[in-house]
């Protein structure tokens, strides 16, 4: 079990896919049950991992498996889990269950639960796999595996402009990953003919001249930055989110964006610390531009989901700012920010989807008085808005504040003055966040319902919504009050990265 559990965590969803494929389309309940069961079983493996994970050794890879895979190019099936991967893996499993539950009788047009659920499960495989891959090629495969299901999810079940949005999402990401894989290969050939991440962490910085490091880092940067997405590579995100079905948006926001930031933390920084130092100012710059720019973008939005999408740009800016500081504080904040953003923005998309479903529109100018018609939904929206703007006591705060904090004192060798300016700008970004989120909340929830919906019957929360959302809401509060839940996991591994970054500081 110990050796197998990670592989099971990756591939159980695929088994579910096969079973679903073999199930007749007409028997929808069975299909749904299989999907739910699959996610639950997968999460069961997650539970096993949580239970048997050695929390005193978060920086070491556990449950590791290192088997031969593609010998001809030197790639191995190497998976393992440490403090960085664990929270994201669990988050991914968790979100997938909730998505299946949420969609229980919420399937967007053209319905077809069979295909829809199969896609969710394939996505889960990709996401889980990315978070525990310890081999660059394996990482790449899983990283890319999520593209197709998400493409179809947006393209088939999405909104009016879905075709454009889906292909845009696909092309952007693929462009990044094309460069990323070049970077991986360059690492392979220049740093000891291995794709093994831990080995590369050991060797790469000594084996590679600074110049090569820069180039390779640049390639990796493109791959990850597009996925994050960082300004100016973000334009796929609003379109994708706006058009995606609710569940697609949730998965996209909660997990897929994290693949990029995770890539930075897992691969780019520790493997190429030298180049990371050279790039840090640039990453920081794009991050703070993203913070302000995303916020400004939010202010201009008319569509609820699009607004939330732009807010993701801003939030991921905080995460990237944390990473750019190259300090353990900042990276811890980034890790926290990833999970927090996953929960909060995921929830926001759930709520936005439910609102859109009830009113048939997400135009904020047409909405209003949600609190009158569906008070619970309205307050949950308010709660998520508050969490999203970084209110202390809720999870979002721990992604934002430590990032700001760490920017005051970036890693040795980085320009202190520059990063302090970043800190101030990022702080200003928090105000913007408050601005657009409250403004959104006011327009959607406050006031009286518009005439067109005044007599509409707006159902407050459905049972699947309750079941799906309660854990996320609890998670947001729990992480907000007990940040150690996350920091304890990530800290060991982050310290290690911070250490290797500090080693090369000039």
């Amino acid at each position, binding site marked *: 079990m110990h050796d197998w559990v990670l592989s099971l965590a990756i591939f159980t969803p695929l088994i579910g896919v096969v079973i679903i494929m073999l199930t007749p389309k007409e028997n929808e309940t069975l299909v749904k049950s299989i999907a739910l069961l699959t996610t639950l079983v997968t999460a069961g493996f997650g539970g096993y991992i949580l239970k048997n994970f050695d929390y005193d050794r978060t920086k070491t890879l556990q449950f590791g498996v290192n088997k*031969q*895979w*593609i*010998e*001809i*190019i030197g790639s191995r099936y190497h998976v393992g889990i440490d403090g960085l991967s664990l929270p994201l893996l669990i988050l991914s499993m968790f979100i997938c269950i909730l998505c299946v539950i949420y969609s229980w009788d919420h399937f967007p047009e053209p319905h077809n639960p069979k295909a829809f659920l199969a896609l969710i499960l394939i996505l889960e495989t990709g996401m889980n796999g990315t978070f525990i891959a310890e081999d660059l*090629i394996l990482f*790449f*495969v*899983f990283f*890319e*595996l999520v*593209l*197709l299901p998400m*493409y*179809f999810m947006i*393209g*088939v079940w999405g909104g009016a402009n*879905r*075709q454009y949005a*889906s*292909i845009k999402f*696909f*092309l952007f990401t*693929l*462009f990044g990953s*094309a*460069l990323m*894989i*070049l970077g991986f*290969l*360059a690492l*392979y*050939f*220049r740093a000891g003919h291995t794709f093994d991440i831990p080995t590369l962490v050991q060797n790469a910085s000594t084996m590679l001249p600074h110049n090569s490091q820069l180039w390779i880092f640049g390639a990796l940067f493109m791959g990850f930055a597009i996925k994050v997405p960082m300004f100016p590579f973000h334009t796929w995100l609003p379109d994708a989110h706006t058009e995606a079905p609710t569940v697609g948006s949730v998965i996209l926001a909660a997990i897929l964006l994290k693949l990029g930031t995770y890539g930075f933390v897992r691969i780019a920084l520790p493997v190429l610390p030298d180049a990371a130092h050279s790039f840090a100012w640039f990453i920081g710059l794009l991050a703070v531009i993203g913070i302000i720019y995303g916020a400004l973008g939010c202010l201009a939005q008319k569509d609820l989901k699009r607004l939330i999408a732009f807010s993701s740009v801003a939030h991921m800016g905080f995460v990237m700012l944390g990473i750019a500081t190259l300090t353990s504080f900042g990276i811890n904040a980034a890790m926290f920010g990833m999970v927090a953003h996953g929960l909060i923005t995921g929830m926001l998309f759930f709520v936005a989807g439910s609102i859109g479903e009830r009113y048939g529109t997400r135009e904020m100018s047409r909405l209003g008085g949600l609190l009158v018609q569906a008070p619970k939904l309205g307050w949950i929206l308010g709660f998520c808005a508050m969490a999203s703007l970084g209110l202390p006591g809720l999870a979002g705060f721990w992604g934002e504040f430590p990032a700001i904090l760490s920017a005051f004192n970036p890693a040795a060798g980085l320009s202190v003055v520059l990063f302090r300016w970043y800190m101030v700008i990022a702080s200003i970004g928090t105000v913007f966040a408050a601005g657009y989120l409250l403004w959104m909340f006011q327009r959607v929830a406050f006031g009286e319902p518009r005439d067109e919906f005044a007599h509409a019957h707006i159902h407050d929360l459905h049972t699947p919504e309750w079941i799906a959302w309660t854990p996320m809401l609890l998670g947001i509060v729990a992480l907000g009050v007990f940040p150690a839940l996350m920091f304890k996991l990530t800290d060991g591994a982050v310290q290690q990265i911070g250490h290797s970054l500090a080693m090369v500081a000039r």
Partner: protein
Amino acid sequence: MLSLLAAASSSASSFKAPILDYHAFAPEIVLTGVIVLVLLADLLVPEDRKVLVTNLAGLGVLASLIPIITLAIDGHDRTMFGGAYVVDHFALVMKGLFIATGYVVLLMSTNYVADGDYYEGEFSFLLLSSILGMTVMASARDLITIFVALEMLSLPAYMLAGWRKRDPKSNEAALKYYLLGVLSSAVMLYGMSLVYGVAGTTVLADIGSFFTQFDSQPGIITVALLMIVIGFAFKVSAVPFHFWAPDTYEGAPTPVTAFLSVASKTAGFVALMEILYVGFLSNNNVWGPLCWVLAAITMTVGNLIALRQTNIVRMLAYSSIAQAGYILVPFAVAGENAHALITAQKASVVYLLIYTAMNLGAFGVVIAVARKTRSGEIKSFGGLFTYAPGLTLLMTAFMFSLAGIPPLGGWFAKLFMFSAALDAGTAPAIVLAVIAGVNSVIALFYYASVAREMWMSPVPDGDVTPIRVPPALATALAITVIVTVAVGVYPPLLAKLGDVATLTRAF
């Protein structure tokens, strides 16, 4: 340079019959036997039972796989006729590929040709002849043999392209293919004659050792080499020698198009590998940059034009041009060093193996869908998912495999291709890799547009009667999709076959 040849020319007025290793020739002998059998059977089988002939051809093709397997098990390389004909791992892998391709194409064409009431027996006969040429090509290590093999595989293909005799487009396809094919083989011949003139031999290994003596070669060799490369660049439809391809692909019967885009192209690459890696390894300062330019413009032009296509076959034609560009990437970097050379060979072979499966599969679906829609427009795929989910899934898999998206086979091919470029590690190699990377993104757009039509668009004519896929075609699709997916998920399946350093082992 004359002294070198003294040994070759002086000897022997007494003819010594060569001792033939029949095991080594067994695949070709079986194939030839099948060819003759098919021709005879075609005479005897009545008009309404012609499908038997096709079945016979299929079985025969499979039978010729047996000696390949025995040879592979036997394992040691066989060199004959002073190095003019070699049966080694590389040759066996490629022969196997050609024969498998031939089998799948036969499966794909069974109903196509029968339904169209074309000359089924002769069709199989010509197809097998062309495959025979290819298998010979895989072993040929001599200019004359290569030339004859090339003509052997080309001439039947010219005729097959025009097989739909009453269709002017098919005629046009055949004419263009034929004329340009003949011209480019003439250019190639001219180049070969120059090489022969300078080196005094037609055996590649001897040519290779001849040229290693010189630090720099005269311009004549540069141009001769260029001319030879052009001959095969035509075959693999590299820009700017690709013009025939879209027109011919569109006009030719679809199974023939599939055959051309896969087997014929592969044969071109096989010949190119033999000539460049065995005969002209030391001239890599010529063919390196040449292949670099060809690769770069081929993939770029192919992809860009493919963006604008509305006909699925034509789009696949440009797609296969672009794919040829990717396959040329390892050629561009192979000469950098010994290690890069080996990686490049493996990369090319792996790419060809995977490309064959996925491209054949894509054409298979096109054939299947066209059975109902009678149209080659991409639009005719609209809403396919609603009435033919299975075919949609298959086509999706093939399209995204061609685009190189994991976990479908294409990603591994591309990865290996990139890997070859970066193994060489020179600045031009890396630039080429980046160009290839950008191109694979552009390519996604049109591959995905097919998926988009199938999944996201309405059925154009509202006709949602399911598509009946005949068993032969279904078998072909099954084979291709299994290979495509299995290799993508577990690349080592093919990687072993791609381990073909034998081609240049001597060096």
